[in-house]
Structures are given as C-alpha cells and as structure tokens.
C-alpha cells in the first residue's frame, strides 16, 4: 500500500464554537435531504393522516369544519412526534453519539442545534401545508391565518419538548411508541393553547390570550428542554 502520512505534514486549523455548531446543524439537514423521503415524509404523513378523518366520518361539511382545529392540531402533533425517534437514535446506533458527547463544545449547545435541525425538517413544513388542508375542511381565512401562526410557535415547542423524550428512550427497543407515551402528556399544554387559539377565532373571539400562553410555554421549553435532553443523553450512554 501507499506511504503513511504524518500529522506534522498536515495543515490543521481549529474551528470556533460557531463553526462547530453550524456543522452539526448542516450535517443533520444534509443527511435528511440526502434521503429526500425523510423531509417529505413528515409532510405527507400530515396530509394523509389529516385527510383520513373525513373518511372515518361521513362527509357532513358542518361536522368537518367543527372538527378541523382539533384534527389539524392533533395531527400536526402526531407527525412531529413520529419523527422524534429519528432525532438521536441513528447517532446512538452507529457510535456518533459518543463522539458528540466527547466534543469540545458544551453538550447543551450541540443538543440545541439538533433540535433546531429537527424543527426545520419536520415542524416548519407543516406551517405551510396545514392551511392548504384547512381549506379542504372549509376553514375561513382568519382561522387559517391563526392556524399557521399557532403552528409556527407550537411546532418549535414540540421539537424542544420531544427532544427530551427522544433522549430518554435512547437505545430502547420499540422506541417509537414509548416516546409517544412520554411526550404526549408534555405536549398537552401546547395542544390546548395552539388549538385553543384557532377555536377562539372560530367562535369569533380574540386568539391573543391563547397565543401568549403558547409563547410562554415556548420560552420555558427553550430554556429547559436542551438542559434536560443533554442530561438524558449522558445517562443513556453510561
């Protein structure tokens, strides 16, 4: 074989915190885009699942538009949740997680990047399709608008909170369903305020109260979820 390369011949530069974090975000998104199916999948799951509710309940348009806020919000929540198991599992299975925990950057920051990547890939797209599906359920344009706003804030909170569940269930078989159980109760405030905002508009009230409570939940999640996830990851590796 060929000659050995010595480190001293190499030109090695150090990266700053920012570049390291950027790399982590970029890699997660790249992996997902590489298999385009992953990105499109959450998206289509949302569309397909939301469309199957009318199939289960004859086609009464009044019933449909009354069901719509809860159906769309619960479906968004389930779609985000479905993709949670992907958040750390593959890094754990192939040993990358050990590398991540042994990185020279604080684990909390790295975790935050992974959460952001998850949101960009699975939460954000829903903000854009949900209104389209809303049209099928005969929602008014005011309702559609608040639906999008509440999902924008809500899905980020879902990714943050979900990350804790994903980290806690790492390395455990049948993870998908177990995460669901851990995470669904934590998701309830997000659901109540998110769907609540849309319901408020439907009955002609102001959505501002529900939205600001949703904002408060989001703020708390931003502060605590990365800490809790980092701790859970450390435990999972021991």
């Amino acid at each position, binding site marked *: *074989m*060929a*000659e*050995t*390369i*010595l*480190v*001293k011949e*190499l*030109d*090695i*530069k*150090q*990266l700053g915190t920012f*570049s*390291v974090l950027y*790399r*982590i975000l970029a*890699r997660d998104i*790249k*992996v997902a885009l*590489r*298999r385009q199916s992953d990105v499109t999948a959450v998206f289509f799951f949302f569309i397909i699942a939301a469309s199957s509710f009318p199939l289960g309940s004859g086609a009464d348009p009044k019933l449909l538009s009354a069901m719509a806020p809860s159906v769309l919000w619960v479906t968004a929540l389930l779609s985000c949740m479905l993709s949670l198991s992907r958040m750390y599992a*593959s890094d754990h*299975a*192939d*040993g*990358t997680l*050990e*590398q*991540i*925990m*042994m*990185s*020279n*950057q*604080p684990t909390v920051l790295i975790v935050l990047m992974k959460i952001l990547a998850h949101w960009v890939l699975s939460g954000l797209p829903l903000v854009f399709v949900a209104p389209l599906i809303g049209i099928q359920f005969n929602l008014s344009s005011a309702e559609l608008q608040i639906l999008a706003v509440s999902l924008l804030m809500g899905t980020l909170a879902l990714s943050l909170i979900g990350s804790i569940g994903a980290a806690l269930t790492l390395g455990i078989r049948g993870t998908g369903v177990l995460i669901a159980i851990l995470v669904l109760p934590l998701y309830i405030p997000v659901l109540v305020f998110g769907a609540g905002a849309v319901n408020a508009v439907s009955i002609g009230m102001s959505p501002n109260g529900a939205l600001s409570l949703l904002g408060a939940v989001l703020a708390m999640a931003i502060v605590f979820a990365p800490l809790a996830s980092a701790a859970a990851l450390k435990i999972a*590796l*021991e």
Partner: protein
Amino acid sequence: MGFLASNHVLTADNLVGVRGERLLFEKLSFELTNGTVLYLQGANGTGKTTLLHTICGLSKPYKGSVSWDSENIDGLAEEYYRHVLYIGHLPGIKEDLTALENLQFSLALTGTQFNFSQATKVLETLGLAKGLNLPTRMLSQGQKRRVALARLWLQNLPLWVLDEPFTALDAGATNMLKQKIEAFANTGGIVVMTTHQEVMMNVPRFEQLRLDA
C-alpha cells in the same frame, strides 16, 4: 520531543470497575506519559471496553478517578475532550453520508477544520479511492472501519483511545494502522488500546496490562 507543543500525563488512580453486579477490576492505577502505548489484554468480558469508557469519561468509575495533566476529567469536561480521540467498537459513521462527509463531521466535533484535499489523500492512502463518493452503507465491513480510522490521520490530538482497532481489517490495513500508531507514539502521543491479535510495537514505552482475574 515530537510535534506536541506540551507534555501530557494521563493518570488512573485506584480505579474500580463494576458492571451490573460484577466486579471487573480493582485498585487499578497507572500513569501514562508522552510516547507510551498501553496495551490492554484480557479474555472476552474481562472489562477492557468498560475501562476504555471510563478513561473517556463516558462511564463513571465505581470508585477512583481518571486525571489528565493532574486534573480530574470530571471537572475538565469539554476541556479534556479537546485532547482525546476515541474510536470504539462502533465505527461512528452515518451510512447515508459519504466517507468525506462523515470525516468532516467527526472532525468538526473535536473542533478541527476539515481540509478537503488532505482528507481525500488520506482516504486514498487507506485504499478507499473508489468509494469516496458512495454513501458508506455501500462499503464492506472493513471499508467502513477504514473510514472511521481515517480520523487518526487527520487530527492532531495527544491521546488516542482505541477499542479493537484491527477488527475487520485485512493484512495491509492492519499493517498501516500499526505503523501509524508507532509513528504517533514516537512523536510523543499517548495511546490506550485493546486487541485480541498479538501486537508488538516499536515505541518509546510499551506497557501491557492484563485484566484477567
């Protein structure tokens, strides 16, 4: 002495290792300085992997402590990881990414800038010229290991912790890796490794530690 700016010491102090309810090793102490290769031996299940995890701070020892330059690694945290390169049983590569993309990410985690042409050269040296742009899932068992090991050629960290690095490698690759470890120790690196193959290394200090009862 060598490429390392400063001297380092890895110290294990009275380590006790327990897995489940089973005592694996007890009162284990050693001190490794620049140029040392510590070769862990022992039958299957005697605690080699457990000891390496402890040295990396991935598991906490039941008792005792590990120090780097006389500071407990618990307290050092990321500061310690700026110095350690660990390659375990699992290769730590993403099967959907190519070899180069995987390396780029691994390097970033320890804060090393990725240099495309250097990485390409190293992968070619390691016999992966044909697979550079394939997702690593299309590589054979031994080729995947080579991608993981390429980090040894691309990073400049003073401590290597290697768990059975020769697994799945053919004779040619085994030889290259052995030479690389020797070169590293000769320029002042510290290595802790396990393997079931027989090895003899031509390095400043070669120490063996058997974990058998």
